[in-house]
């Protein structure tokens, strides 16, 4: 048996203690906020004034006097726009591009997104590698506009979760309708859509996880869609924490999820995604369908898909809900057909449609 020097034991013990303390501190710093914490934050800041930043203690600071903070905070903007920075790893700089005495902060002029210009940045913290995120919600039926990290954003009675990535801003559409980009080339998101806005908009592959439902509910955000199997409205779920997407094209997904993803890709004219989800025979039709709504803004309304039959190799999926398009102000709802899928190499692929 080795005979260790007493100082070596002391040093080792000290070293282990330091390690444990450091780890504990790190865990505390990097721990994601709980639903209870967000509920408390939301309550503490529920009455905070427009153009202020509010922290968990309920202390508010005017926007133009606020300083960068790594603490969770609620930024209340005009027009019922609220930004909630949820994991304390982000700083926000908010400016207005119109004089404060001359609203509107909410700009209903469709020709440009003006009003608030919000810049969110990752904080230089030990947790900088973690997912830095913020919820953005807009109440009311009037479209609310802001420019977020140089991306024009218009939200109508809805909510987004955003994360900052090396390659751009990732937008998770949670509820209502959101349009990104300039009005001459808008990209419309419906609940359940995820877009990475970098050099050009792309659908992340694989799709990242949505935030947990209880976090959204703590902020009074009710998502329109729950990306779970089966696809059902969130209020029909027993497990309200079950919002997950684990999408890599069609690999390992149930047929109804494949169809939902196919339809979601269709609303943003994502030909590559639709073709990736299709069998060879349907490839050209997928390409065609990816383009045929392109002259319009399209979104999924109350879409929930379910398998009506399934064998080892074939499945049929039907969907409730509609695709809604907006062409020059004219709204049209499109009934969804039933889809036929085949399984190839363990992957369910769209291979036809029926009515």
């Amino acid at each position: 048996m080795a005979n260790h020097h007493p100082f070596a034991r002391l040093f080792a013990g000290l070293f282990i203690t330091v390690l444990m303390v450091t780890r504990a501190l790190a865990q505390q710093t990097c721990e994601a906020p709980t639903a209870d914490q967000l509920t408390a934050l939301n309550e503490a800041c529920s009455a905070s004034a427009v153009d202020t930043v509010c922290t968990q203690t309920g202390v508010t600071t005017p926007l133009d006097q606020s300083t960068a903070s790594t603490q969770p905070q609620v930024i209340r903007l005009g027009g019922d726009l609220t930004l909630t920075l949820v994991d304390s790893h982000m700083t926000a700089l908010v400016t207005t591009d119109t004089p404060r005495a001359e609203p509107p902060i909410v700009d209903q002029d469709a020709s440009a997104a003006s009003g608030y210009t919000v810049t969110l940045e990752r904080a230089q913290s030990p947790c900088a590698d973690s997912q830095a995120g913020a919820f953005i919600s807009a109440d009311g039926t009037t479209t609310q506009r802001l420019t977020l990290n140089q991306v024009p954003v218009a939200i109508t009675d809805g909510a987004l979760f955003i994360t900052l990535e090396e390659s751009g801003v990732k937008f998770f559409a949670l509820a209502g309708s959101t349009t990104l980009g300039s009005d001459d080339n808008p990209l419309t998101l419906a609940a359940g859509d995820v877009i990475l806005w970098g050099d050009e908009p792309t659908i992340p592959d694989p799709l990242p996880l949505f935030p947990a439902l209880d976090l959204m509910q703590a902020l009074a955000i009710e998502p329109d869609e729950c990306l779970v199997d089966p696809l059902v409205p969130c209020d029909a779920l027993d497990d309200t924490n079950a919002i997950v997407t684990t999408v890599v094209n069609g690999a390992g997904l149930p047929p109804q999820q494949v169809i939902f993803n196919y339809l979601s890709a269709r609303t943003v004219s994502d030909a590559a995604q639709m073709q990736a989800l299709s069998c060879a025979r349907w490839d050209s039709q997928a390409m065609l369908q990816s383009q045929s709504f392109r002259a319009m803004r399209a979104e999924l309304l109350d879409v929930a898909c379910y398998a009506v039959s399934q064998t080892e190799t074939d499945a049929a999926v039907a969907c409730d809900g509609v695709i809604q398009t907006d062409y020059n102000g004219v709204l049209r709802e499109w009934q969804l057909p039933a889809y036929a899928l085949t399984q190839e190499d363990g992957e369910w692929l769209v291979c036809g449609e029926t009515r």
Partner: protein
Amino acid sequence: MLKQRFMPLFVAACLLAITVSASVAQQVVDLTPPTFGDFDPAALTDIDPADVPIVPALTPHARLIFERGQSRDVPRDPHMFSKVGDSMTASPYFLVDFGTDAYDLGAYADLEPAVAFFSTPFEDTIKNAFNRENYANALGFSTASALDSTWAVADVCEPNESPLACEYRTANAAFALIMFGTNDVMTFDEPLFDYFLRQVVLETINADVVPVLYTMPIRPEAPQRSLIFNQIILKIGADYDLPVINLVIALDPLPNDGIDLDDTLHLTHPEAPESAASFTDDSLRTGYTIRNLVTLQTLDTLLTELDLLPGET
């Protein structure tokens, strides 16, 4: 007697001539389905819409397609045309009033036989080619929409049937008036528009329906791309040897090129009580009226060259 002896020879010669011209047209026109990526922008450089007549003649290939349509088990109806396109084609200002008595040809009374020819009732209805319901045009329609079964009218069209196929099956028309570009030009790039429009044209040809194309009105937001898209339309017309109504040149003398600047998706139209089916001086200063005029002139030309009008031999 002499006449009777030579008659079989004459008929045989005529048949031979028709066969030869048909086979020549077939040889010239390549009907291979398009492949995405084949688009060659260099092929457009020599195409200038200003060099192309507004009212086209019947081309040999169009004649051949028409004749094929007439030789089907159920011949295509020469009194019928399909309207294929976007909201400008679905518009009530486009030809609809010629289906009733609510039109005035003004100085163009020579078009009356053509109007009468296409006023033949559609099936057992009181509708006709001018005002019957079409299934291959709609608001927001693009070349891709025409081929996508999602856009097919559910109660009329069959599962997986494209709007275009549905329209040709239900209308059984001999002619198709096809205008695309206004929506496409803002959303598609040139290769995609070329690819989809070729598919629309080929599906029409393969259905033994004579495609009559239009150049598109200029989108003020994208005049240069509008020019390129019109070059594509003219190139496709030339490649498939088809009549192309050169609408963009017909609209050129009009205020704002016949475009409604408050709604650049659409042509201008006359204010009531004037109508786009009245060829008065005032009405003829609007886009829809001009489109109606050049369309009737083209249909009249086609019918004349096909010897379909009464009194023609």
